[in-house]
C-alpha cells in the first residue's frame, strides 16, 4: 500500500480522497492555489503545498509544481480527483516517469477514451451499441453529406470534448453550415484540437451511466447504473439517482452487461464510468470517463461500498475486494449538487463570501462539502459547494428525505441551486420518474415564463 498520497485537486473531492487515504492509513499531501489558502482541503491534509496563483492554468494545472510537491514530500502516488488533470494522459505518464503511481488507468487507456472518436471505434469493436454517426469529419462538405444520410437533427461534437462541452445540436443544413466553423473554432480554442465528428441526435434521451471497476489481475465488476438526466442547458448534471427509475429489467441488465464487456475490452484497471444515452429500450454508448465521478456517492450509498478507497487499493496493486455477486443494491439513493450559481441567469456561477452555512444531516443523509461559514468562493473554479445525498428504502423515501434535507440547508452570501433542487424533488413529473435531458431546461424556461 502507498505511504503518502498527493491529492492534485481542491474542494470537496480533495476532502473525499483525503478521508479515504486516512482510512487506509496513508498520509496525505494537499496542493492549493493562493486563492484556496483557507480551504478545508488544505487543513485536513497532513501536509500542503501552494503550487501557484488562483487561475487554474498556473496552479491546479501546474504540472511541474505539482510533481515537485510530490517528490519533495516523499509521496509515492498522486490522486487526480475529477476535472483538472484527471483525464490528462500526459500527466499520468509524467507521474509514472517520476516514479509516482497515478491513481487511475494506464495513460494509453486515458488517451484512447479521451479521444471520443477513437473511444467510439473501440466500443463498436467490443460490440457496444453506439450512436449512429461518423468518424472525424474532413470538411463541411463531408459533414453535409453525412448529415443527410443520418437524417436531421444531428449533434456536432468535438472529439476532444466531454463533460457537456464541445457539443452542438444542428437541425438543418443551413444551421450546419453556420455551426461547423463555429464549433471547429471553439474546439480549437477550448481543447486545442479542432477535429469534429457527428452523431444522430437522439430525441430527448435519458442520460444513464454505469459504474465499473477493474483491477490489475483482469477482474472487473459493474456497480450498477445511475440516472443523470437532470442536466443544466450546458449538459452539466444537477441531480443524479440510482437505480434508474422506470427502466425495464431487461434494459437495465443489458446496460450492465455491455458496460462490463466494454471495461474488459480495454482491460480497464481502475474506477471508471461508461455514459449512455437511452431512448426507450435503446441504449447508445456516449463516452467513458476514466476517473472518479462527482456523483459516485449515489452508488456508494446504494451498494454500501467505498469506491474511492477501492480505487486507491487497486492502484496500489491489490485485488478487487468485492465480487459481482457480492454487490447487491439496497433501496434508492439520490444526489443534489448545491452550486454557487444563479439558476434563473442560466446557472451563471457566483463568487462571494459564504456568510452563513447550515448543512443538513440525519438518517440516510450524506453531505460531501468543503463549505463553511466565512469561506470566500474564488471566481476561478467550479461552482460546486456541496453534494447532498439521500438514501431510503424506496425511491419515495429517498426523495422525501432529500426534500427535508434541502429545507434544512441554508447557504448565505451567494445564490445557489438549493431552491431549484427542492423544486425538482417535489415536482410530480420528476417523482413519476424517467425524465429526459430536456427536463431541466424546460423547467427553467417554464419558471422564467411564469415570472
Amino acid at each position, binding site marked *: 500500500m502507498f505511504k503518502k498520497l498527493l491529492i492534485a485537486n481542491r474542494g470537496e473531492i480533495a476532502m473525499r480522497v483525503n478521508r479515504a487515504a486516512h482510512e487506509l492509513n496513508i498520509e496525505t499531501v494537499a496542493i492549493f492555489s493562493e486563492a484556496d489558502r483557507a480551504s478545508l482541503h488544505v487543513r485536513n491534509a497532513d501536509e*500542503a503545498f501552494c*503550487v*501557484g496563483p488562483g487561475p487554474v492554468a498556473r496552479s491546479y494545472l501546474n504540472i511541474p509544481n505539482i*510533481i515537485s510537491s510530490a517528490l519533495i514530500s516523499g509521496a509515492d502516488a498522486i490522486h487526480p480527483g475529477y476535472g483538472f488533470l484527471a483525464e490528462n494522459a500526459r500527466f499520468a505518464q509524467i507521474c509514472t516517469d*517520476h516514479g509516482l503511481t497515478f491513481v487511475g488507468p494506464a495513460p494509453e487507456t486515458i488517451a484512447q477514451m479521451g479521444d471520443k472518436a477513437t473511444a467510439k471505434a473501440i466500443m463498436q469493436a467490443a460490440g457496444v451499441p453506439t450512436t449512429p454517426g461518423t468518424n472525424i469529419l474532413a470538411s463541411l462538405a463531408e459533414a453535409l453529406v453525412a448529415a443527410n444520410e443520418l437524417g436531421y437533427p444531428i449533434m456536432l461534437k468535438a472529439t476532444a470534448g466531454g463533460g457537456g462541452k464541445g457539443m452542438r445540436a444542428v437541425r438543418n443544413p443551413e444551421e450546419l453550415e453556420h455551426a461547423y466553423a463555429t464549433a471547429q473554432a471553439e474546439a480549437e480554442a477550448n481543447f486545442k484540437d479542432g477535429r469534429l465528428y457527428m452523431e444522430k441526435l437522439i430525441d430527448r434521451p435519458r442520460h444513464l451511466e454505469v459504474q465499473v471497476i477493474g483491477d490489475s489481475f483482469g477482474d472487473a465488476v459493474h456497480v450498477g447504473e445511475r440516472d443523470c438526466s437532470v442536466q443544466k442547458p450546458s449538459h452539466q448534471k444537477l441531480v443524479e439517482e440510482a437505480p434508474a427509475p422506470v427502466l425495464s429489467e431487461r434494459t437495465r441488465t443489458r446496460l450492465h452487461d455491455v458496460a462490463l464487456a466494454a471495461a474488459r475490452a480495454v482491460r480497464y484497471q481502475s474506477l471508471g464510468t461508461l455514459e449512455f444515452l437511452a431512448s426507450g429500450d435503446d441504449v447508445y454508448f456516449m463516452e467513458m470517463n476514466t476517473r472518479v465521478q462527482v456523483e459516485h456517492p449515489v452508488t456508494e450509498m446504494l451498494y454500501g461500498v467505498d469506491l474511492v478507497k477501492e480505487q486507491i487499493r487497486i492502484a496500489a496493486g491489490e485485488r478487487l475486494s468485492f465480487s459481482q455477486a457480492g454487490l447487491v443494491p439496497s433501496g434508492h439513493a439520490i444526489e443534489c449538487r448545491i452550486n454557487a450559481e444563479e439558476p434563473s441567469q442560466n446557472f451563471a456561477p457566483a463568487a462571494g463570501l459564504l456568510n452563513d452555512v447550515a448543512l443538513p444531516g440525519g438518517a440516510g443523509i450524506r453531505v460531501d462539502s468543503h463549505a463553511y461559514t466565512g469561506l470566500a468562493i474564488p471566481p476561478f473554479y467550479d461552482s460546486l459547494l456541496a453534494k447532498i445525498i439521500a438514501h431510503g428504502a424506496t425511491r419515495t423515501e429517498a426523495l422525501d428525505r432529500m426534500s427535508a434535507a434541502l429545507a434544512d440547508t441554508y447557504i448565505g452570501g451567494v445564490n445557489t441551486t438549493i431552491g431549484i433542487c427542492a423544486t425538482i424533488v417535489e415536482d410530480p413529473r420528476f417523482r413519476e420518474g424517467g425524465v429526459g435531458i430536456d427536463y431541466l431546461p424546460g423547467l427553467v424556461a417554464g419558471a422564467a415564463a411564469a415570472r
Partner: protein
Amino acid sequence: MPLARIGLGSNLGDAVQNVELALAALAGLGRVVARSALYRTKPWGLADQPDFVNAAALLETSLEPRALLGSLQALERDLGRVPAVRWGPRTIDLDILAYDELTLAEPDLAIPHPRLFERAFALVPLAEIDPAFRPARDALARRERRGVQRIPGSAARSPTTVNWDETLERVRSAAEFCASAGLARFRIEEDDLAVEVRRPVRPLRAAAPPHPADAAVHTNGAHGSSNGSTPPAERAKTVLKAEFVGIVRFSRPSVAAGTLVGEDRELAYVEALGIRNPVRSGGPGRVAGVFVTDGQAVEYGQPLFALET
C-alpha cells in the same frame, strides 16, 4: 507613524531560529526600529516543556491595530509552517504588547496586552529596547526577572534606527573637514554607524565648495546615499518569493540579513525537478531579511529574501 511593541516567543523546533526569522519577517509590516536580545525562559509549572525563547521589537507601522493583528497572525501561520506540516502546534507566537499610547479592550484584541505587566518574559526584552517599560520591569518580583535570561551572544540592535538629523550633521561636518583639510576621502566608524565622505579633487581649485559631491552613509551594513540636503530616501523594499515548488539552495557566497549586494546577482536557486531556478536580486541593494534556510523545501509564493533597494 504609530509605534507598536511586538512580543515574540517560540518553544518548538529551533526556537532561536524561529524568533530570528520572525524578527526578520516583521520588516515586511513596517520599519523595525529596534529589537531586543533573545531571552530564554524556563517554563514554570509545565516541567516537561522545552524552554521558551522570547524577544521584543519596536515596529513603526502604518497598520491599524486590528490590521496589524491580522498580519501578525498571518505571519504566525506562514512561519509556523515547517514545509508544510499543518495543524501542528504553532512554532511562533507574535503579540501586540502595546501600540502607541492606545488602550483598547475588545473581546478579541486588548491593548496593552492584558497580562504584559505580569509577564517577565515579555517585559524584560521590551524594557531593554523601550525605556518607558523599565519601571514596570523593575516592579516585577526579582525571582521572576531572574527566570528570564539573556541568551549569550545575542544583543539588542537598532538595525535601522538612524537619527538622520544627527547623521546628516555628521556627514556635513565630515565633508567640511574633508574640504578644509584637502582630503579626497574621509571615513569615521563607530559601533553601528560608519560615515564615509569622498570628494572629487580638482587640481586647479584646491578649495572645493563646501558641498561634497558624493557622500555615502553606511549604517550597520545598510546602504543609502544622500546628496546634499536631500532627505534620506524611503528605501523601497522588495520581497523575493519562490516561483517554484522545490528546495531552496543558497548561492555562494551566501547572503545573510545585512549583506550588501553590489549588483544584480543570484542569491539562491530553487531546485525543482532537477532544474535550477535562480532567485536574483535584480539589482544592487541590501538584504533586509532571510526567511528560509539553505536546503529547505519551499512552496509557490513563499517569501525567501527581503531586499532594500
